[in-house]
């Protein structure tokens, strides 16, 4: 069997996989031209595919994209290059809870992502299915260590890919099973196979798996919709990009970096489109009710739990039975095809029922369904089995990212991919753990929630999950994270990264200058900060004061938000400082909860199951009260003292 060696192997070419490979490549740099990262995917032609809604960002998700971008990730760049309708959601609300979002040309998006990946000399794309996970056990080490994967190339040949770090991003493909009515087809996405071997390998290694479900709506042919008759859904008149690098790539291109070919010097790059709105009818709701016995969701054919925030149309009709109609948004999927995504009627009902639902919608009486909706069930690894770095607690060097951890959404996947990619490299090269705090980033909230909560549905980010959301704004993502990215080494290896560094230095200088200019300023005798704090004071008002074109818009937004939230932010910082000591206190690995009889049963069970890394994580476990934590710290201290007395008996690695 042929054998290849890499620093990091990424399994899966979706949004988690490409971001993981990208981050790993950013850290590793180009090592004499030999690829150091393998990206193993079933079909290399479908890297970066948007399986469901062709949109990036939204409430809380837009913050994640901004954060991934601030850390040198690719999602923001690709979204900016391929967006066909940009809109910042919640514009009437405060700056912390606005959500940048775009509709994407799904084909352009995948093509752009693929070309960025292929342009990286550090990354080798391997078209293969992973059949086995290779592990090794070292003497004196309790945990197994990952050694690589065995994969079957599309030619049928088995190859051995070796690496001390493997990142699994299997999406919906692990034992994926698609449902349309009573029809069941194995596969992770329409027209693609399922990944069967990995589930077995993980079970064999001792992982506890779970099963989730998600769904997708029918796609229609736009030429068969009475498009012009339907109400319009417009994007923002002045689109705002995700990345500060948008429209800045011209100067960079002169460096001859082929990575930048997919990016552009203008924004928006693509022609902008208009979406349309229609609705379901009472008549089709009746048809749905009559056919519930044929709906896999209700007939018991689907075992996995689906997301409550994205219910199928049959779910909505059952749960909100007095509603006569549900809104449906018709979103063009691409500039180059006729396909339209029906946002709002995700379904696994049989095809004849889908026909009725669609043709009852105003404007869609003659609509042709290009692809029927379906539900997909897939295996996940229950995420209490990973650390906040993405590495599993059972196998050293094995990382999980994306839907395999029970999340949903491209943005959540990308964020985890980035975290796993960075940590995989640091695992192999000896850096410390890269874990963002809950008060630093939505990415920190995401990873912390994953390792402390039992998922009951695919996890999606909301701003209300972030207790420090006034700090975690889309406008200041770079301020929060770009210095960290630079310190990690994510920016130093590419022209793109170095361009980010330069832009960030500019931004920091501008912010300083603007703060100085506004400090102590009075307008007609009134303290200017009080004026700025008023609701209704906008960036435009500030622009009039400081002069147009002197500051970047993002700089104005940040300074405005800082003043507006000033007193509240101050309070949050105080409460963060108060909690920080307990929050970051490590729980040593040698702690045995079953030898702590004074702990309440419920607390002991939760702690044994999750094995939290810190007291902060422990405090967020369901079933653990503040009193339990206090007792735990004392028991830890006692155990350590006893350990010290019986030196040698306990492998105390300290904390």
């Amino acid at each position, binding site marked *: 069997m042929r054998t290849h060696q890499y620093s990091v192997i990424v399994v899966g070419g979706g949004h988690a996989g490409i971001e993981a490979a990208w981050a790993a490549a950013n850290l590793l740099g180009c090592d004499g031209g030999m690829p150091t990262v393998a990206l193993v995917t079933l079909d290399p032609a479908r890297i970066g595919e948007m399986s469901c809604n062709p949109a990036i960002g939204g409430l*809380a998700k837009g913050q994640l994209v901004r954060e991934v971008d601030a850390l040198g990730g690719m999602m923001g760049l690709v979204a900016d290059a391929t967006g066909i309708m940009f809109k910042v959601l919640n514009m009437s609300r405060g700056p912390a809870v606005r959500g940048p979002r775009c509709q994407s040309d799904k084909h352009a998006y995948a093509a752009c992502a693929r070309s960025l990946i292929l342009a990286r000399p550090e990354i080798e794309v391997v078209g293969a299915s992973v059949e086995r996970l290779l592990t090794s056990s070292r003497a004196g080490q309790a945990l197994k260590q990952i050694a690589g994967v065995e994969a079957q190339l599309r030619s049928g040949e088995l190859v051995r890919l070796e690496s001390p770090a493997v990142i699994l991003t299997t999406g919906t493909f692990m034992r994926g099973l698609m449902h349309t009515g009573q029809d069941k087809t194995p596969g992770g996405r329409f027209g693609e196979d399922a990944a069967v071997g990995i589930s077995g390998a993980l079970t064999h290694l001792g992982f506890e798996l779970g099963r989730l479900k998600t769904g997708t709506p029918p796609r229609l042919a736009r030429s068969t919709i009475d498009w012009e008759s339907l109400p319009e859904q417009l994007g923002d008149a002045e689109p705002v990009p995700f990345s500060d690098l948008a429209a800045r790539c011209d100067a960079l291109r002169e460096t001859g970096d082929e990575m930048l070919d997919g990016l552009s010097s203008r924004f928006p790059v693509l022609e902008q489109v208009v979406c349309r709105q229609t609705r379901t009818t009472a008549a089709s709701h009746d048809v749905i009710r009559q056919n519930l016995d044929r709906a896999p969701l209700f007939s018991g054919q689907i075992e996995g739990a689906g997301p*409550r925030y994205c219910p199928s149309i049959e779910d909505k009709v059952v749960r909100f039975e007095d509603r006569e109609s549900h*809104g449906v948004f018709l979103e063009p999927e691409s500039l180059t095809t006729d396909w339209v995504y029906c946002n709002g009627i995700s379904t696994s009902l049989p095809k004849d029922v889908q026909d009725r639902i669609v043709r009852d919608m105003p404007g869609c009486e003659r609509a042709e369904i290009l692809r029927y909706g379906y539900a997909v069930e897939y295996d996940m690894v229950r995420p209490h089995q990973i650390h906040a770095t993405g590495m599993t607690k059972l196998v050293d060097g094995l990382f999980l990212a994306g839907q395999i951890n029970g999340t949903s959404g491209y943005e959540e996947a990308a964020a985890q991919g980035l975290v796993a990619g960075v940590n995989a490299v640091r695992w192999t090269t000896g850096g410390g753990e890269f874990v963002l705090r809950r008060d630093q980033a939505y990415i920190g909230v995401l990873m912390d929630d994953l390792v402390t909560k039992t998922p009951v549905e695919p996890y999606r980010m909301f701003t*209300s999950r972030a207790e420090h959301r006034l700090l975690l704004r889309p406008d200041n993502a770079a301020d929060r994270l770009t210095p960290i990215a630079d310190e990690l080494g994510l920016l130093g290896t590419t022209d793109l990264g170095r361009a980010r560094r330069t832009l960030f230095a500019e931004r920091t200088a501008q912010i300083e200058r603007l703060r100085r200019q506004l400090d102590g300023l009075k307008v007609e005798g009134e303290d200017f900060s009080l004026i700025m704090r008023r609701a209704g004071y906008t960036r435009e008002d500030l622009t009039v004061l400081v002069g147009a074109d002197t500051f970047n818009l993002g700089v104005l937004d940040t300074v405005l938000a800082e003043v507006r939230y000033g007193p509240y932010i101050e309070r949050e910082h105080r409460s963060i*400082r108060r909690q920080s000591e307990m929050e970051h206190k490590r729980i040593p690995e040698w702690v045995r909860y079953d030898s702590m009889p004074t702990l309440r049963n419920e607390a002991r069970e939760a702690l044994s199951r999750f094995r939290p890394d810190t007291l902060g994580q422990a405090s967020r476990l369901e079933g653990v009260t*503040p009193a339990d934590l206090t007792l735990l710290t004392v028991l830890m201290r006692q155990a350590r003292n006893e350990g010290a007395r019986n030196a040698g008996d306990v492998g105390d690695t300290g904390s």
Partner: protein
Amino acid sequence: MPIGDTIVARATAPGQARRTLIRISGPHTEDALNCLKIDTPRRRGAFKARASVFGPHDLPMLVLRFMAPASYTGEDAAELLLPANDTLVNLLIDRLCSLDGVRRAEAGAFSSRAYLAGKLSLAQAEGVAAKIAAESASSLRAADRVLSGQAGDEHRAWADQLATLLALVEAGIDFTDQEDVVSIPSDRLRDGLCELIDLLDAAIGPVHTSWSSDRPLVALVGPPNAGKSTLFNALLGRDRVVTTPVAGTTRDVIVEPLDLSIANAPPVDLADLPGLDEHTTDVVDQDAQRHATAILERADLILLCQSTQHQDGTDRTAELSQETTESASSASEATVFADVPTHIAMLRICTKADRHLPSPLADLSVCARDGWHLNALRRHIAAHAFGSRRADESMLIPRHKAHTRSARTFLVSAVEELTNQPDAELLDAELIAGFLREALDHLGEVTGHIAPDAIIGRIFASFCVGK
């Protein structure tokens, strides 16, 4: 209960002893001493020191210093022995608690730390806890309520009510892209919050006052210019409040500790309330009236003062006797005392009395000017103020009370923020949500934390989310 913080509390009963002991324990003990500019060696021992409270080094005290682990709690600790003066002690503790990482200790906190540090056995710790609880009958009752789960149920109901409101606010932030979701109008939210604040108030008593005390509260009540303030000053033995012949001079509630000078009778708090019948439109006065009503609700004994003189000095004994004989709904008494709670012990005092004329309407006639019957009044207070503490007065054990009070503070901040908003449309939803979240976290210290997931779950239950 974050480990690693430092706790502070008064270790002697308020009011009686001549010296007060303040106990500090935790890693910030040294910072706490530094903040008072107390300069003592960093070793175990007793040291004379001077603290800076109002001015530089103006307060002499004895400092007992303990270094971890050789202390009661096993932590760095100090005890400050200083002159007993409630105001001073409160000020000092407040100042210490303003330091990062320093907070007021809940009842039993020192003992629980001692237990956790292995300094006390569980049985010993429980013994201490029982003793703490037994210091007053009402706190025993409160502890019973906690044990029986009754108090927890209440907190759960409040937390539930608050979580629902928070979900409605969060829905207007996180799900505005959903056609089905409408933000809660600010007036509806305000009403909901005020209702909740009332419930918390009923459980904790008047938190509007900056003073908090375990002493019985005796309130002077009556129509304007009934001589309440004159009597107040006379009982205290000093001119604490300004008195004039003009009706309605007293605008604010004033509360002072009163030593009854009677053997075995502990001190009480004496409150002088503004006349309650003023149909005032002045905002400040309205506020004072609200404050007065709240105090009244909490009182253990009401001294209902009536003057036998008209404002012009003429006698109105006959008038008064006629009013009372007519009916209880007689106009003047009904308006004047409409707000006086009926379940509180009450003593009718005839002020400005001429001792030569008997007063048929009063339990006691007094003359504040020459001190006639003041001692009798003190005995009456001692006899009535302690027997009548209302059963529900201390519904909460101290730790629960502290968190309930903090929750209330955040709710009030939210209501204030809402009051500044002219529109029915909810503005600054993320700031309002922040206050509600903090309030909910405090209630959660009693009931168990309500995670964001639970809030999001409520949104899914009430709105059709998902397009």
